[in-house]
């Protein structure tokens, strides 16, 4: 695996980064660029965490977690020189197409711009409202982006840095102008359903817009706070260097490889197959780690990209922490509701009415907001909906290298799939895979007959494979009480933790998950700020 120096012999470094997911690698790269000796310890056999490309059937490879790149800021990609380290795009500016049974697919265009002619034919009102709505949200997103790219202030702090950060936040919102400020404050606590239903009437357009507000969350579009999750996504996309919705060549794993190369080029060491058993504490400071092999490595600082529950409750242990803090960590809501379906296909699937270009983008089965909400309702009661919400990509359209010649791969995110269905996964797995296949078949007749292999990863599988508590790809719900300056919990929301020299840098932290990398970069800043 990628390495520099001889990491196996290293006994002491300035910084140990636990976990070689994208946030861990970004953090390591920035720390190494600042001159620290850095060792990344990854439990799996390759870097990337959930951002990996792996074989799921002989000859067929797929991005095991997220399958599109749309959140990582351009500045980060440029600073780390990822383009020179193997990051290439098989497709950029990919379109989104809303599917609906019995209706022609509606292409809502690239980068969120609907093909207005198609919409015009369906609803002149929606076609007229869309540009202004989209522009407004983009203004909000651009105003909020600097929040994502900075260490959140501490609440109740007397420090000037915290006060200035809060003042800046207020100023940024005020600088939107009176109308926009009022509108932002009006909608920020709202649910996506009401926001979208107020503006649009076409169910498929509503569904497609609402889908982005709830993808990867534990909420239906009617849940309060879903405008916040939408704005969080749009804010990250506003600075994304990938022209929103891009597909790295070789899958998301290629991005992780490039990040690892960037970290190594900056001087970091990366060790894979090195699961950390525990964080070692000396004189009330994090002093290093002990690997599952028993090997101990000392460090001036330990930075964990594992989720907050894993870091504090498993790797560190509650006896080094106060009860109130442990209670907050234990109460973190982090049950994932997104599953992954991977299909090996004998031929290119045919979605009637979907153009060849659109098939290279993403296809949404989210025909209306009510459809999404109903799918969520089932999950609340431990059931899997018979009408699932699905985001489909066929990555081999843009990147044939992922499958044998002429063959194809379908990668789908299925929502809302409960972590622990009442029926139990032993009984439910095969049945529900069939349900999802049938839902796909309804939009792509003949798909089922071309499937040669299928892999269904439930949230419980994602937890097992990637070590994410609850299988939640944000490492904890993005909700007001787990957001910004209280994410993941008060006392650990500035990447520092109650234990000196222990930091968090994963998706548990602000600004959350998705392949964004900002948690890793902000954490590196926090480490450097403290040690300086």
């Amino acid at each position, binding site marked *: 695996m990628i390495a520099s120096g001889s990491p196996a012999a290293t006994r002491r470094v300035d910084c140990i980064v636990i976990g070689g997911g994208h946030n861990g690698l970004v953090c390591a790269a920035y720390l190494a660029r600042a001159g620290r000796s850095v060792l990344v310890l990854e439990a799996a056999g390759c870097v990337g965490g959930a951002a990996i490309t792996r074989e799921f059937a002989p000859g067929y490879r797929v991005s095991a977690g997220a399958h599109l790149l749309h959140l990582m800021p351009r500045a980060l990609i440029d600073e780390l020189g990822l383009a020179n380290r193997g990051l290439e795009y098989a497709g950029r500016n990919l379109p989104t197409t809303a599917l609906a049974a019995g209706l022609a697919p509606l292409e809502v265009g690239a980068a969120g711009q609907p093909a207005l002619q198609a919409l015009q034919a369906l609803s002149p009102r929606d076609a007229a409202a869309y540009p202004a709505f989209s522009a407004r949200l983009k203004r909000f997103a651009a105003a909020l982006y600097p929040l994502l790219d900075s260490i959140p202030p501490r609440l109740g702090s007397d420090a000037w840095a915290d006060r200035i950060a809060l003042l800046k936040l207020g100023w940024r919102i005020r600088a939107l102008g009176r109308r926009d400020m009022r509108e932002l404050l009006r909608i920020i606590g709202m649910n996506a359903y009401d926001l979208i239903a107020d503006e649009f009437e076409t169910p498929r357009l509503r569904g497609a817009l609402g889908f982005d507000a709830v993808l990867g969350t534990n909420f239906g579009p009617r849940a309060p706070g879903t405008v916040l999750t939408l704005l969080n996504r749009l804010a990250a996309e506003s600075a994304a260097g990938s022209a929103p919705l891009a597909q790295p060549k070789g899958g998301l794993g290629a991005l992780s490889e490039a990040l690892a190369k960037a970290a190594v080029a900056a001087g970091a060491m990366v060790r894979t197959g090195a699961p950390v058993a525990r964080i070692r504490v000396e004189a*009330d400071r994090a002093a290093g780690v002990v690997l599952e092999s028993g090997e101990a490595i000392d460090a001036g600082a330990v930075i964990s990209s594992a989720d907050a529950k894993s870091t504090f*409750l498993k790797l560190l*242990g*509650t*006896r*080094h*922490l*106060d*009860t*109130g*803090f*442990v*209670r907050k960590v*234990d109460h973190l809501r982090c049950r994932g509701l997104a599953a992954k379906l991977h299909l090996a296909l004998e031929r290119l699937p045919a979605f009637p009415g979907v153009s060849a270009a659109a098939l290279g983008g993403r296809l949404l089965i989210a025909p209306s907001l009510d459809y999404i909400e109903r799918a969520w309702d089932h999950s609340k009661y431990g059931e899997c909906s018979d009408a699932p919400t699905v985001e489909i990509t066929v990555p081999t359209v843009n990147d044939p290298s992922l499958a044998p010649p002429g063959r194809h791969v379908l990668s789908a995110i299925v929502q809302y799939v409960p972590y622990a269905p009442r029926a139990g996964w032993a009984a439910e797995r095969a049945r529900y895979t069939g349900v999802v296949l049938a839902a796909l078949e309804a939009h792509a007749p003949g798909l089922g007959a071309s499937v040669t292999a299928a892999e269904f990863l439930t949230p419980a599988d994602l937890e097992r494979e990637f070590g994410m508590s609850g299988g939640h790809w944000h490492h904890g719900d993005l909700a007001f009480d787990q957001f910004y300056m209280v994410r993941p919990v008060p*006392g650990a929301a500035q990447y520092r933790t*109650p234990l000196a020299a222990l930091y968090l840098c994963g998706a548990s932290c602000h600004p959350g998950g998705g392949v964004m990398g900002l948690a890793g970069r902000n954490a590196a800043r926090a480490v450097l700020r403290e040690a300086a």
Partner: protein
Amino acid sequence: MPPIASPLPHFRKPLLETPFHARARELVQTDQFVPWAGYTTVDVFTTVEQEYFAIRNATTLYDLTPMVKYRIAGPDAVDYLNRLVTRDIRKLRPGRVSYVVWCNDRGQVIDDGTVFRLGAAEFRLCTAERQLDWLLDSALGFDVEIGEVTTEIAALAVQGPTSCFVLKRFGLAGIERLKVFEIGEYTVAGRPIMVSRTGFTGDLGYELWMRPADAESVWDGLMAAGRTRGIRAIGSQALNMARIEAGFLLPNVDFVNAEHTVRVGRARSPLELGLGWLVEFDKPHFNGRRALLEERRRGLKRLLVGLDVAGNKPAHNALLYAEQAGRREVGSVTSALWSPTCKRNIALALVEAPHYAPGTTLWADIYLNRELVWERRMARSTVVDRPFFAPDRRRATPPADR
């Protein structure tokens, strides 16, 4: 718990009766019952003065069954308690008791109480208030079992200078060898009784722990054994006088459970309460340690101290001033008493820095209601060490045989 002899449904009679209730009911002359931790208990049996003087001159029985009791056991019990409380529980040997406080994350006191080490991996924690939620949340990551056993144990404090003699005559052979904070197991007429040499009076005294079914016979046996030694049942008011003389703190009087305070600045750290001697920074991590280290580094903002107040009017709830003119307010009294034994007007008071140094003169603003007419006294007060009363007999082993 004994069955409640009442035809009323429980929600019409929400207070429990202790296993000693029938005996207390026979002796109480003034019908002054007060609720305590879900039980009805006696505030005054006859007169406060009579009961107070029995504590200092004879033997008294005080029903402390309502004291909340938790059983904590399991392989990690020592580590668990060591993380919970500020003292080093590893030093507590089986068969011994320790006075402890425990704090929240900010190093502010939740409660104080006593830990009984009943075995290598079994403890009993006695607390003023129920806090199973805090205890259970503290157990995350520890292999330990926690259960409330309040109703399973009847408890009786036997306190006063003749208490050892009374217990011996009652049948606790060898009780005179029991040292302060030591636990002994005894059997009287086939009834097992656990005795700890602990108490809340600052005097010679013991606490008896027994099965509820044995409660009445133990009470009767003690009353018979103590008849010639002036034994008397006492209520909470007399005990409160004794505990102020002994300098002991009472939750919700001298401090408020930090997890119950809603106003900023109302919670108190053990350092502020003058309990710094209970905080052992040299042991492994415990709740509030980092906050307390920071507080120690910055210096205390206030301190709970003893006050010697001029005159004989107790300084109940008095505000304290730095000068007689009463311009600069520097604290307030939490507990006050004309001490009959010390013949001093004493008080516990929370005083702002830097006015808490021993010997500092403060002025207590005392309000007196004299036949419905309010009068005000500015009483000169001096910061003094606690306790106010600490007789040698409380520690003497064996105690005087009388």
